[in-house]
């Protein structure tokens, strides 16, 4: 490049001190931005933060479900009812809560035990559904259910 200042000869002017401050402004918007920009740091950390949030969320849900399934009435360390209450409804919808509660309270899933305890309700249910009582008694043998 030829040493020449012809390129500066034009009818255009610039604001006062423009060129004396120009290089500093350029450095500030390039090197300066990269060194001090919080957004640049956040953009690097963003994927890691997202991953951490997903893992934390999964951990909370797992703990909540475990507490419901294996809970014996004792409060699990680090998992309060408030935390469980914060679990989104759509995650709970797919779970058979009655089954979980029954198991948590020590019920056997078999029918006969509950037959003894709720005989009236069972008979009402059978009548409503037109199930032949004699047939049922035959299957149950001599056991007293009434």
């Amino acid at each position, binding site marked *: *490049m*030829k040493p*020449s200042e*012809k*390129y*500066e*000869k*034009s*009818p*255009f*002017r*610039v*604001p006062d001190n*423009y*060129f004396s401050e*120009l*290089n500093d*402004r*350029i*450095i500030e*918007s*390039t*090197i300066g931005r*990269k060194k001090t920009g919080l957004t640049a740091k956040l953009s690097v950390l963003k994927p890691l933060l997202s991953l951490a949030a997903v893992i934390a969320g999964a951990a909370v849900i797992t703990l909540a479900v475990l507490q419901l399934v294996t809970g014996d009435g004792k409060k699990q360390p680090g998992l309060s009812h408030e935390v469980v209450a914060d679990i989104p409804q759509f995650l709970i919808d797919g779970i058979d809560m009655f089954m979980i509660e029954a198991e948590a309270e020590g019920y056997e899933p078999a029918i006969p035990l509950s037959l003894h305890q709720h005989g009236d309700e069972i008979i009402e249910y059978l009548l409503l559904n037109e199930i032949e009582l004699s047939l049922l008694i035959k299957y149950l043998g001599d056991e007293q259910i009434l």
Partner: protein
Amino acid sequence: MKETLNDTEVLNLLETSPEQGFRLIVEKYSRRLYWHIRRLVIVHEDADDALQNTFISCWKNISRFRQQSSIYTWLYSIATNEALMIIRKRNRLAEIPVDNLKDIFLLSEEGGTWFNGDEAEEKLQNAILTLPDKQRLVFNMRYYDELSYEDISNITGTSVGALKASYFHAMKKVEKYLTS
């Protein structure tokens, strides 16, 4: 003293100390690039924006720069693209090509604040503004920046022969405009 370093020395400095090397590039070329952009976009604010964008792009891509061209032709090509983007955006906003100083000043906030040319200079600028983009580029880079055709070829990606033809036509059009 620093400004006397050649491209190879600047590139070596970029490898050992990128920030120092980049500062050197800014110091060496900012003023020259400003005037190149300014003659294309006319408005100071636009020229300043395009210059900032040029160096931001340079800083982001400095590691990809290969010595297939010199640093200043590489910078000129970035600056030229930035300037052309502003011109096209302005033409889109105006819905017609804006090819005289008065209209450009009307479209900008700063108006003619940073123009102090006399009637003859205004006429020359208007003559240059009537040229198609490529002819205007060639005219400015030959007439004002005194770049060689080889350098302009590297910047614009056009053959030397085509550039010579463009410059010839540009000169004729400017002469005709000035004598009309």
